[in-house]
């Protein structure tokens, strides 16, 4: 263990330790992620070793130059430049004085002209009087990670397609036998074969969910933006679940407010359909409401039910693929546990946010925040301070 490590583990960082600029510089230089600091005019004043390795620029080549000066050239995935605008996370954090909430993936330019995907975190730097004197950006090369994710997704999609042909034969033959195409069968045979058919249908649902998830997990997954009448999407979703709700004696209340936004109507439909499907599935009495409102450039849709609810301890996990909340084993075997994971993918890819509030036995409230226009990455209305 080095002296530095001993010091950190033994004492955490105390004031005097932080006060020694040389130590701090060693730490920053040695970090595996690219770390650079800019002054008030966004001139680069510090450029660590990982920055050199990842971008190909030596510190001597960039120090003193503004970061927008053809160095990293951050763009979004569509190639739109983020420099010198509020779309640039560093620019924005220096403007607002707030650190970026979570790492943002952008494309960066290397010295050799190639582009790489980097995950970027930012924070403003303050002077002694609290005034903003610069900013820090930490970035990580995620190209390799993205490639692996893509390979995994394409493998998953290949395998899934391979599963569909055998399933077609299994289902088709069962259906022909049950429909009498092959002659008489006795009632016991019929009931067993019907079980087989139901199980085959379950497999089919699981395969379709897997395929969807694989599709939404591909890194280059892009939303086909077009003008969307959100009312129409929500009406269509609600209509789709009316019968099922009616059979259980539930009402679906729809409160709309003429929201037009940019998004992918098919994917939005799927996201809300998954939310409503859960609401209907896990509610036995009471009702379900879907409420949409526009707030400061965001569409806010609340899907509320009076169903079984979710244990608080499980809330952080429910958006994970394959995770299924426990409900006393009543519905063991139903669903694939991917519905909410898919909802999250869709909402994320629209630049939106998804929130859940729930308590066991007291129903659930899912809130979806969607920016009305694609590049609006401000903070969703309810998460702003003081509102």
């Amino acid at each position, binding site marked *: 263990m080095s002296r530095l490590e001993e010091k950190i583990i033994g004492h955490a960082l105390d004031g005097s330790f932080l006060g020694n600029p040389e130590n701090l510089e060693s730490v920053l230089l040695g970090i595996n992620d690219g770390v650079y600091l800019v002054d008030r005019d966004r001139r680069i004043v510090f450029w660590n070793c990982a920055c050199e390795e990842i971008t190909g620029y030596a510190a001597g080549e960039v120090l003193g130059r503004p970061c927008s000066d053809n160095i990293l050239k951050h763009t979004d995935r569509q190639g739109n430049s983020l420099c010198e605008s509020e779309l640039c996370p560093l620019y924005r954090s220096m403007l607002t004085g707030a650190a970026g909430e979570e790492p943002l993936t952008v494309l960066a330019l290397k010295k050799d002209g190639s582009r790489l995907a980097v995950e970027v975190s930012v924070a403003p730097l303050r002077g002694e009087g609290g005034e903003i004197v610069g900013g820090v950006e930490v970035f990580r090369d995620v190209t390799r990670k993205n490639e692996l994710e893509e390979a995994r997704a394409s493998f998953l999609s290949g395998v899934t*397609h391979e599963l569909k*042909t055998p399933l077609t034969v299994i289902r088709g033959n069962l*259906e022909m036998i049950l429909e009498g195409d092959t002659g008489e069968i006795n009632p016991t045979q019929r009931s067993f074969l019907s079980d087989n058919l139901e199980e085959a249908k379950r497999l089919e649902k699981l395969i379709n969910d897997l395929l969807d998830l694989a599709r939404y997990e591909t890194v280059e997954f892009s939303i086909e933006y077009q003008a969307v009448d959100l009312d129409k999407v929500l009406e269509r979703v609600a209509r789709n679940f009316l019968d099922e709700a009616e059979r259980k004696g539930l009402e679906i209340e729809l409160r709309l407010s003429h929201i037009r936004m940019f998004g992918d109507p098919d994917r939005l439909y799927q996201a809300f359909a998954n939310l409503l499907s859960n609401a209907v599935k896990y509610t036995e009495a009471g009702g379900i409401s879907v409420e949409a409102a526009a707030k400061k450039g965001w569409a806010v849709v609340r899907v509320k039910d009076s169903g079984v609810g979710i244990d608080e301890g499980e809330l952080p996990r429910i958006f994970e693929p394959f995770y299924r909340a426990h409900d006393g084993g009543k519905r063991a075997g139903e669903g694939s546990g991917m519905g909410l994971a898919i909802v999250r993918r869709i909402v994320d890819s629209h630049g939106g946010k998804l929130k859940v509030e729930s308590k066991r036995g007291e129903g659930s409230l899912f809130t979806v925040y969607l920016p009305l226009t694609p590049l609006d990455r401000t903070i969703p209305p309810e998460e702003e301070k003081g509102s």
Partner: protein
Amino acid sequence: MSESKRVLVAEDEARLARMIAFKLAREGFEVIAANDGGEALELCMNRDVDAVVLDVMMPAMDGFQVLKRIKAYKPNLPVIMLSARSQEKDINYGLELGASCYLTKPFRPTELVECLRRQLGG
């Protein structure tokens, strides 16, 4: 009853081909089978067929290529595509190339029959 319609089934998966052939025969169609795209094209050119059932994923020449060639010289021959690919863009591609119907796996045998009947008018 009118003379039975002849349907060419191009499907490289033997058990799926068997299922389709059984169902179509039972519903009164005459079935001829092709194991791959090349054979399908050849049979299509040399025999009188009233409709084609064509799998998209076949080795060597895939269903879309076969479809293009069939449509080039028999534009009015109904072709029904079978595919595991269920994304809208795949379905639209098939329909743009002139397929009459695009069934995604797993499809039901009766769906296929209904599709054929619609195309053959009876």
